[in-house]
């Protein structure tokens, strides 16, 4: 615990320093409040609107989590399919990789077209953002399974099911978690974008509306909360990773 605290000290100090510079800079340099508001004003605005913000936070978090959950299910299924079928490996896998050259942001309006202005268009955009890292990293995890272990298990009489459950699946877990951590971070961005494209609630909608009204404190408080959400989701994914992979590798981290 002490070690952890002391490891976080430099970064914590740095953040405090930036916060202090922000506060002092905006006061001393006379930057207009609609360009960069004072940090204290941002917090005041956050506090004044705490109930509204909490509601929007919950909406965006819900969209991100729902999309993330569906991506985990779909991405893992796709990875299992790619692993299990030679045809899928030759057709689906390159397609999924190539699909990443399509600018996802450009595709997002199509989701609105298909799923309307309700929550599902936001969830669809989140899936658009998070499916790829999970599917590809999990598929790569399957492929990284040590063939010698597979041979050994076959020599010991393992059936197909054993090979999948006791060799392939555990081998793919580190890759899956790498994908999950990436996906967790960008899921918030997906949800935000979905809300920009049209929505009644959520922090993305809140910041956009505040921006239109030049309420810089409100914009910044929304942005800070979205960043916090991204960090929290990433930490949650890492926590899950450590819980599942604990003791597996030298050092504390899975990968």
């Amino acid at each position, binding site marked *: 615990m002490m070690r952890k605290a002391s490891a976080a000290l430099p970064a914590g100090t740095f953040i405090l320093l930036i916060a202090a510079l922000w506060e002092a800079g905006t006061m001393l340099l006379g930057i207009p409040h609609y360009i960069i508001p004072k940090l204290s004003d941002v917090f005041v605005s956050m506090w004044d609107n705490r109930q509204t913000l909490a509601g929007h936070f919950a909406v965006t978090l819900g969209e991100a989590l729902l999309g993330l959950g569906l991506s985990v299910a779909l991405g893992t299924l796709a990875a299992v399919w790619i692993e299990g079928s030679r045809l899928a490996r030759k057709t689906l896998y390159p397609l999924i990789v190539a699909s990443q050259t399509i600018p996802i942001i450009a595709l997002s309006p199509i989701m609105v077209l298909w799923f309307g202005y309700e929550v599902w268009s936001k969830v669809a955009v989140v899936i658009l953002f998070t499916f790829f890292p999970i599917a590809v990293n999990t598929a790569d995890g399957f492929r990284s399974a040590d063939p010698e272990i597979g*041979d*050994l*298990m076959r020599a010991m*009489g*393992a059936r197909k099911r054993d090979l999948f459950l*006791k*060799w392939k699946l555990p081998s793919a877990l580190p890759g899956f978690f790498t994908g999950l951590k990436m996906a967790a971070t960008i899921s918030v961005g997906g949800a935000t974008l979905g809300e920009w494209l049209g929505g009644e609630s959520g922090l993305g909608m809140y910041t956009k509306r505040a921006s239109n009204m030049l309420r810089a404190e409100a914009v910044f408080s929304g942005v800070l909360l979205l960043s916090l959400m991204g960090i929290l989701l990433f930490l949650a994914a890492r926590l899950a990773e450590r819980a599942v992979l604990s003791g*597996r590798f030298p050092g504390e981290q899975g990968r």
Partner: protein
Amino acid sequence: MSGLQVQAEERAGTQPGGTGGSGSRLSVRPAILSVRGLTYGFSRAEPLFAGLDFDVREGEFVSFVMPSGMGKTTLFRLLAGLLAPQAGTIAVGEERAAAAEASRLGHIGYMPQRDSLLPWRTVLDNAALGLELRGTPKREARHRALELLPVFGLEGTERKHPHELSGGMRQRVSFLRATLGGGKLLLLDEPFSALDAMTRAGMQEWLLQIWERHRKTILFITHDVDEALLLSDRVLAASASPVSAFSEIAVDLPRPRDCGAVLEERFIRMKRELLRLLGRETRGSGGDRR
């Protein structure tokens, strides 16, 4: 080549008691493994094995010594059932007729060159893997593995993960896994080649002790002539590809043996003979290792 083989077999069989009596004791035991006309190659043009015959009797410790690249590991993969012979039969135990590879899978303990332990499993769960794959309930498999940990010098490591163990310890776990998982036959593929010389000497003595207590049939691949002679009842050697017969040396050193045996005159004579069979004619002391 095959004449030499017969001669060697006769010698092993007729030595009355010899020293320690390993020769005569083994000759009456039934063959646990018989290979007939084994042919295999990765390309048709240059097979690794062409019509290879050999037998291994129950309870025997047999080493295979061949120069690199002649298919030692391929031979073991064939024996384990991971590869199918292009011609010929490999019969284990009673089922002489059963040539199907599937019938061997799960009946032969295999210890690969690298330990190939599952990094996500504890020592105990790694050791129990073979039993688990053969359908033993997990609890019972763990229980049986736990009982054997002290015998294999692994007491107190059951909750550790492989990366927390030294190379020698990992090989012990791998050996325990092969012992528990396989049937009557153990295939050890250069298990000590990755260890440093000190650890290797320790592991050789350790393996001798374990084997002398349990007397499972062991087939052992090595490129280390000393190691082969020290451990084995018989050493099968080949020096030219494709292998159609093994030349054989019956090692009539008394058991129990320890590392001091390599200094005996008889040992050095056999070593010179083995090096000659391997096509490495030596003048003088014949102290060429590997």
